[in-house]
């Protein structure tokens, strides 16, 4: 009798859990399936844009729909993994003229706060370390979706972008036109709940 009750309780709990969208959880960014991108876009002499991607990075975040103030995210990017579809340009970007990747091989972001600005939207504040310089930045982010995936995990996905002024990070762009002094950083990823 006792066993039956426990069983019923467990079944009830199991039935309720999937209905609840909100669960406190740590998420690991889905690097294995690579549903994660760190990209940038910078003007080229006023003619067009250069798009680039950092291919190696990792990170985790904390997301609980019932406790958004507790949201946090940490990422570490391997600067040498930069790819702009042009090997010699990549080498130039990684040289001491710009990113100086041999001296500063990683870029990191650690959030310090989150403010909800509407349904599925908010602004992440945090410390971005790039080129050895740490600056506080704000990045508006959007929750794109969350739920059970087809492969037995629970995932949540976001995107966000912000403009960075390169001189704030000690990268000298004074030889280049004004339009190239800042770039857009775009990040999107899915996390798998641990």
């Amino acid at each position, binding site marked *: 009798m006792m066993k039956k009750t426990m069983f019923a309780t467990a079944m009830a709990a199991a039935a309720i859990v999937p209905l609840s969208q909100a669960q406190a959880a740590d998420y690991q960014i889905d690097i294995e399936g690579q549903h994660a991108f760190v990209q940038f876009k910078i003007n080229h002499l006023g003619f067009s844009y250069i798009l680039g991607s950092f291919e190696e990075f990792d990170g985790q975040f904390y997301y609980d729909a019932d406790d958004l103030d507790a949201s946090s995210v940490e990422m570490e990017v391997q600067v*040498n*993994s930069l790819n702009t579809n042009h*090997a010699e340009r*990549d080498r130039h970007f*990684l040289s001491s003229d710009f990113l100086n990747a041999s001296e500063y091989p990683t870029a990191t972001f650690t959030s310090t706060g989150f403010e909800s600005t509407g349904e599925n939207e908010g602004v992440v504040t945090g410390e971005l370390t790039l080129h050895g310089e740490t600056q506080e930045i704000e990045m508006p982010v959007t929750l794109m979706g969350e739920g059970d995936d087809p492969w037995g995990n629970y995932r949540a996905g976001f995107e966000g972008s912000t403009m960075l002024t390169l001189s704030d990070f000690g990268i000298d762009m004074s030889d280049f036109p004004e339009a190239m002094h800042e770039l857009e950083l775009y990040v999107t990823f899915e996390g798998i709940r641990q």
Partner: protein
Amino acid sequence: MWRNTQSGWGIISILFHWLSALTIVGLFVLGWWMTDLGYYDAWYNQAPWVHRSIGILLMLATFARLGWRLIQPTPHAEGNRLERLAAHVGHIALYALLLLVLVSGYLISTANGRGISVFGWFDMPALLHGLPNQASLAGDVHWYSAIALMLLAAGHAGAACIHHWRYRHTTLRRMVNPKISQQRH
């Protein structure tokens, strides 16, 4: 006359040697100059294009040259035993450094899998790409091995001068005059 003998170098080896020497020094000077060009310089894109094109041609020529070197006789070395050993090691190091400079240069430009256009005549395909940090590492190797090659080449030229003026060997003359390969020694 075309082929090498124990006595001296044939025309083909002589041409390979001097055309390579001229090209290698020229590429070094061009490379040194072009890496200091500003982004707005008219040669900023053109100079590397020429450097890459000539570099690929030199690489292909060097493969042919090494093939020829291996199937042809090598003229006897001059000097005492230590000098002959030093010359042998020096020559192997020159070839090794040359190959290192050529291959590392090739690996910079092909790091993302894109081939190298040789004067627009044909594309040298990317055979090895996507290695971690390939362009930057290959770039460092290219730079330092090119400097080492120049230093060793200067030593090589100095040794040739010593053979020629101090010891009165045929070493330098036979790299100029293919007729020496026809003489008995």
